[in-house]
């Protein structure tokens, strides 16, 4: 029979005596005064006489027991006693962390520590005036028998304040010099309001960023069982419900304003230092897009070639010249289009003196997409024409054959419509003249159609 549920000293005395009398764990019924039923009779059995000599237990066990005893699990006394009996014969066993009993005790201790920590965090004082001036009163419902053990924290922190913490099991009061205990209380015994609470709630609602909603995480750290005594938690449903709308408003109000030309200049400057993929190492320079930054029409090619790499401008080599001619034949004004590439650095293989173009891989395309996305945000073209599979891959995020996408309108987000056609360099590589002419005509047709879209 123990006088209080968290009385470590009483338990220790009893356990020590029992262990010294070699009483087996199974032969003990642990009870706390005033708790539980009367299954085995009321009278506490007198302490047995010791048959074994006194013994010492490791410090680590004492620490563990001090936490475990505060748990509300009625088995805790018996578990600790079993452990004690084992340690009597072999004290070093306390260090066997993978032992199931040790593990069980560790978990109980951990739950207690967590509850202690949560009490330190979630106690909310309300200010009241009494004859002696201001006093701070809180109501809190701990999960375990931790209140007494936790008083020290509040004493150290709020030493110069007068305060009370009321809990269902017991209340503690501090008057600035002494700590007193009183019986348990209900929420109704605590003050109902505090004017500062409105400020606190205002703070709570404002410091939360609706674009980052992570409710699970919140509930994991602030379990609902503590919510009833925390004023700010009343706001949570509303904050969650409104979050998506607030986020959308944030994004919508954020339709980019300001000076697009400056933004573009700066972006281009930043791109000239890009190291997002290894291609920057061998190329001469970043070849950024070009054209009016309010263009309706955007062309996206694959990557700069040998001449573009040297000139620092897109579409100036043979393929660019062919592109110019096709644009003229299609009746589209190149000067009014924004022209850029999916990948901004020249990738090549050195063969003798010549640098032979080689196709960017998926990683490079993905890395470089950051730039094209930024360009699109500034230019905001209504129509985008993807020249070749690399461009398709970049903007749709999927590697697809040209045949499968050529006659479709593609979704590239943003409300822009996109169409795909061949890259002009493909036309240059066709050996068969007749076929080249057919393909060229189709290319011109595609350009004209896309420009009309």
């Amino acid at each position, binding site marked *: 029979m123990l006088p209080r549920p968290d009385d470590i000293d009483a338990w220790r005395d009893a356990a020590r005596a029992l262990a010294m009398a070699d009483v087996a764990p199974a032969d003990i019924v642990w009870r706390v005064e005033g708790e539980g039923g009367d299954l085995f009779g009321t009278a506490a059995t007198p302490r047995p006489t010791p048959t074994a000599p006194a013994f010492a237990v490791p410090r680590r066990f004492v620490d563990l027991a001090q936490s475990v005893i505060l748990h509300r699990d009625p088995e805790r006394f018996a578990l600790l006693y079993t452990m004690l009996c084992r340690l009597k014969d072999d004290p070093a066993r306390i*260090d*066997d*962390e*993978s032992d199931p009993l040790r593990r069980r005790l560790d978990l109980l201790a951990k739950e207690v520590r967590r509850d202690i920590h949560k009490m*330190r*965090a979630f*106690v909310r*004082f309300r*200010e009241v005036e009494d004859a002696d001036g201001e006093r701070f009163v*809180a109501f809190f419902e701990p999960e375990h028998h931790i209140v007494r053990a936790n008083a020290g*924290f509040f*004493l150290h*922190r*709020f*030493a*110069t304040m007068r305060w009370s913490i009321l809990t269902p099991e017991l209340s503690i009061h501090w008057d600035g010099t002494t700590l007193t205990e009183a019986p348990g209380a209900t929420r109704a015994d605590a003050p109902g309001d505090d004017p*500062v*609470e409105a*400020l*606190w709630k*205002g*703070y*709570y*609602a*404002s*410091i*939360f*960023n609706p*674009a980052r909603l*992570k*409710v699970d*995480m919140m509930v994991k*750290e*602030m379990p609902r069982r503590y919510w009833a005594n925390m004023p*700010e938690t009343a706001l949570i449903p509303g*904050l*969650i419900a409104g979050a998506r709308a607030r*986020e959308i408003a*944030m*994004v919508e*109000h*954020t339709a*980019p304003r300001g000076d697009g030309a*400056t*933004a573009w200049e*700066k*972006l281009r*400057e*930043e*791109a*000239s*230092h890009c190291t*997002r*993929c*290894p291609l920057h190492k061998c190329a001469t320079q970043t070849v950024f897009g070009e054209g009016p930054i309010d263009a309706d029409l955007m062309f996206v090619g694959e990557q700069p070639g040998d001449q573009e790499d040297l000139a620092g401008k897109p579409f100036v080599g043979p393929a660019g010249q062919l592109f110019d001619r096709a644009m003229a034949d299609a009746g589209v004004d190149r000067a009014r289009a924004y022209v850029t590439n999916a990948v901004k650095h020249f990738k090549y293989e050195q063969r003798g003196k010549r640098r032979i173009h080689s196709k960017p891989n998926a*990683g*490079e395309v*993905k*890395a470089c997409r950051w730039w094209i996305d930024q360009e699109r*945000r500034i230019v905001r073209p209504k129509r985008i024409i993807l020249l070749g599979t690399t461009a398709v891959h970049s903007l749709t995020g999927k590697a697809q054959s040209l045949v499968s996408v050529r006659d479709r309108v593609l979704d590239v987000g943003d409300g822009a419509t996109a169409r795909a056609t061949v890259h002009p360099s493909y036309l240059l590589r066709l050996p068969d003249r007749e076929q080249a002419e057919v393909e060229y005509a189709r290319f011109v047709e595609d350009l004209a159609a896309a420009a009309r879209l």
Partner: protein
Amino acid sequence: MAQLDTRQKLEILADAAKYDASCASSGTAKRDSAGKAKGIGSTEGMGICHAYAPDGRCISLLKILLTNSCIFDCHYCINRKSSNVRRARFTAKEVVDLTLAFYRRNYIEGLFLSSGIIRSSDYTMEQLVEVARSLREDHQFRGYIHLKTIPDADPRLIEAAGRHADRLSINVELPTDPGLARLAPEKSASGIRAAMGGMKAAIEDGHDAKKRYRSAPAFAPAGQSTQMIVGADAANDSDIVRTAATLYDRYALRRVYYSAFSPIPDASAVLPLSRPPLMREHRLYQSDWLMRFYGYKPAEVAAATDDAGMLPLDIDPKLAWALKYRDAFPLDVNRAPREALLRVPGLGVKAVDAILVSRKWRRLSLADVGRLTVSIAKIRPFIVASDWRPTALIDRLDLKPRIKREQLELFAA
């Protein structure tokens, strides 16, 4: 314009502070008010999160700006000069009173104060220091104080800040210099680094002085930290990890915080407008852990990135590393050294230490290891135990769990 009341100001100036991630209250000197005639507050080794917001982030400090007016025009910042937001300004006394009122009710661990730059860097810094001074000297406040310092403020002001605050921080803002040049044209990367260097020296001097004279005033006992914004410039994850490693190394930072760039009202045209890359931010924090607690070198974290230099979003960086270096596994839990065990995906520092203690007692079986960890399933393919040897499991590709839908949605544009 009508005068704003305290609540309105608080809401404006907290709202303006919500984008800063560098808010923690741990690692400072222990203090308390027991037996003191005046004053309030205490600090322990570990800070306390007094509440959690629906964004999952902990609220441990009153985190506000002194003012959200600013003479600078940094594009990623809601408070920049050209932004159209409502402005407010607290007096030093108002901040002091609010901090104390909140602290007394056990809402917070202390104050994290930062500010837009008004008039001049020195003027602004003076105001910040005045708040901290008043809390410490006039009110004997012993709770936590974190001040965000202005890089080019007078060193004497920084010195005063360090005497009152537990932690000081200077934001590097962006992981790359070109990113900073584009998005914060008035800030200078070298100026920020110089200020961090100065701070490091001051903190070290403080430590030395403390060793020699116990009465020497402490200087920022919780050290310095910084924050960088992720997703607003072109930096990839290996750039970011490298930058962070250099910062830890060179300026002895306690923490580098990452803040996924989130849309801000009235954004500048220079910025990406997608949802904040939260999963990416999370992976970067995990990689930070790997470096700080698990002995990974920055280059090793970088080795876990894909060819675009990005950490995978569907699996954590430790698993990504392990899958790339499969021949380092399986490891025998009964024999492998600590450093090696720390590389097993799913084994945390605590579990590894528990294994090391336990194996003095017995040869560990799979069940033994299971009791020391959260879940054995993830670990199994990478370890050998007394009754367990993975049979070529490690070569199977399905170790990589399928990407969960919610995760995808987190970073969908």
